[in-house]
């Protein structure tokens, strides 16, 4: 709304600061800046005086002190002799783990539910509607608590596996045990030479990618379609298996075994993780399902009809024609759902999952009484996490966006 003023010759006077549109914006901004700084200074001063009155100081030295508590799920080495800083890291990694797993599962659930909600199968469409509405309209905290309770009560205790005629049995040839403390699965053991197997496996992944590109180029050039799926499957398994057996099976499996109170050996996926993961995924999945449904409905019906006219089956119509176009509509809200999921993972305390909020913002804060430092640090970490996620997803979004030339 800038008005071109032709009174340039006029000498400057103070009232122009308010009435001349050239200077007005500067005046307003200066005013706002001073006000902002004043408020900031006021808050900092208050904090300073309050801390002084309580005889506290502001320093992060407590992070170096011995934590003294144990954490059950730790992705890095941690004992109760480690520092609070390390406990914070353990918590942060746990947050990242559940957020990562949650985003993947939520997307899968969301896409399936969103597509099925539009299915012409009446029963399935209705069931999906019940799922979506049920999860969207009840607080997440209730779902987390409820799913955790279901896990606890519906699954057998480790004791049930004991004895000659146990009440519960391990699955898949005594390799997987599902208990109400978590699921135990076999863990790989890395012997000599297992490095080669891994390298060969990674190389064959690269091979699959290269082959896929080549096959596509060939199809574009000659129109010939190779049986890519079977060839890729072959590349995926054969070289690695070959090396695996040549080197004398260096990679083994460590099976879980009932010892004492609990199963030992194998990988223990705790129910706190599983319940939180499932609850977050189901809850966020319901929202994603709505986004997916909206995205699909946004694609004009003509696209479906055209695909049908080309003779595509309904599954292929969906995967080749509709979803790729709908993706552009779906991705922006998907980003905010991922952000929500990450932030909602802070409800982990309801199931006793030791995430950032439970370590730094929970036990550490409680034991040291440093609420100001701990809360500020926690906010900064969550903020950085959110910015990173939205940054990464925005880059992805701009890469799939319709390029307007």
């Amino acid at each position, binding site marked *: 709304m800038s008005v071109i003023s032709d009174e340039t010759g006029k000498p400057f006077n103070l009232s122009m600061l308010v009435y001349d549109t050239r200077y007005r914006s500067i005046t307003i901004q200066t005013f706002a800046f001073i006000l902002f700084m004043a*408020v900031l200074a006021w808050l900092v001063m208050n904090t300073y005086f309050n801390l002084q009155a309580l005889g506290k100081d502001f320093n992060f030295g407590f992070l170096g002190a011995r934590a003294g508590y144990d954490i059950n799920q730790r992705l890095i080495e941690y004992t109760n002799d480690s520092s609070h800083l390390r406990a914070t890291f353990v918590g942060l990694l746990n947050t990242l783990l559940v957020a990562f797993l949650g985003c993947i599962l939520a997307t899968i659930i969301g896409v399936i539910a969103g597509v099925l909600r539009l299915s012409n199968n009446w029963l399935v469409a209705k069931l999906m509607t019940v799922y979506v509405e049920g999860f969207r309209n009840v607080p997440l905290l209730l779902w987390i608590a409820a799913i955790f309770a279901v896990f606890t009560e519906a699954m057998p205790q480790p004791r049930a596996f004991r004895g000659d005629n146990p009440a519960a049995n391990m699955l898949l040839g005594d390799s997987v045990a599902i208990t109400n403390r978590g699921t135990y699965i076999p863990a790989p053991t890395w012997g000599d030479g297992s490095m080669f197997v891994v390298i060969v496996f990674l190389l064959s992944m690269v091979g699959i990618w290269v082959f896929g590109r080549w096959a596509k180029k060939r199809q574009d050039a000659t129109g010939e379609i190779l049986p890519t799926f079977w060839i890729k499957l072959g590349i995926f398994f054969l070289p690695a298996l070959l090396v695996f057996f040549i080197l004398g099976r260096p990679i083994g499996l460590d099976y879980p075994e009932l010892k004492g*109170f609990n199963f030992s050996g194998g990988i223990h996926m705790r129910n706190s993780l599983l319940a939180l993961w499932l609850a977050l995924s189901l809850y966020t999945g319901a929202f994603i399902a709505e986004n997916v449904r909206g995205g699909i409905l946004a694609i004009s019906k003509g696209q479906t009809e055209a695909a049908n006219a080309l003779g595509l089956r309904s599954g292929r119509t969906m995967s080749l024609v509709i979803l790729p176009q709908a993706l552009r509509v779906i991705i922006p809200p998907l980003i905010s759902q991922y952000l929500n999921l990450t932030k909602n993972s802070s409800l982990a305390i309801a199931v006793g999952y030791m995430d950032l909020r439970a370590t730094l913002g929970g036990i550490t804060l409680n034991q040291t009484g440093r609420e100001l430092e701990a809360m500020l640090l926690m906010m900064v970490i969550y903020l950085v996490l959110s910015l990173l996620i939205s940054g990464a997803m925005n880059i992805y979004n701009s890469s799939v966006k319709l390029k307007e030339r």
Partner: protein
Amino acid sequence: MKKSVFIGALTAAGLAAGFASAGTLEDVQAAGSLKCGVTTGLVGFAAPDANGEWEGFDVSVCRAVAAAVLGDGTAVEFVPTTGQTRFTALASGEIDLLARNTTWTFSRDVDLKFTFVGVNYYDGQGFMVRKDLGVSSATELDGATVCIQTGTTTELNLADYFKSNNMSYEPVPIETNAEAQQQYLAGACDVYTTDASGLAATRATFEDADAHVLLPEIISKEPLGPLVRHGDDQWADIARWTLNALITAEEIGVTSANLEEMAKGTNNPEINRLLGTEGDLGGMLGLDAEWAKRAIAVGGNYGEIYAANIGEGTPIALARGLNAQWTQGGLIYSPPFR
């Protein structure tokens, strides 16, 4: 800018903005009610009944202090606090007294700057297991899964205990007693550990209480008591001596039944001093002569409060044990009223 307008507006609405001054006693008397921090719910110690009336062992302390200061045991605003918010609430003046089964420790007293006015319950961390587990001592718990209530000293004690006995364990941290109880009953953990009083209270409400047993080891000292802020000695004295009055009343045989009669004067000078018919102990505290009489009148003496809330006549059925009077071999001991 608009923000501050709203804050200002709400402040001016006079919802409850107040300015804490140095004298907690004057503040409480001016407000006409005592703000007392309690748990959000712990069986026997503090919980609201169907009419919203709080009741429990800790709650009785609040009521006694309110009666001593304000003359009315119901003039208490109960502020539910969590393990995390309790200290901030006290430090910021949101509450005047914290009676939330809080363990008296060095760092809380010195570093967090609170004054513990005494001990109303001597507790210790214990373990509860299923009987059919065949465990008779905590030293057999190597490798066990342990449910802990977080936000307390419990997790530190546990870590220390298992470490010093060279045992490993799997901690399952749980936010509230109710959740922990559900986890334990479903067998998601082998052991449930918290204060022994809490364990006994929890066990008492089980459908099959006999199938569970408390292990003999008590791995920590947990003197639980009410606390106030540093820096207001008069207020700390009032809280301390109100608690002592309840204890002394039991020791010298003043009960809610014979209170009125004894307040008329007896030939026991200590009873007379306590109930204000002799000397001026109340005046020294900044209260009137009958302060202790009112405090005792609310829920009776220490023993009566104990019996009514957590004693053997209740479903919780905690024996007096350490919490018997010193004359009965316990630790409950009040300095003399003199």
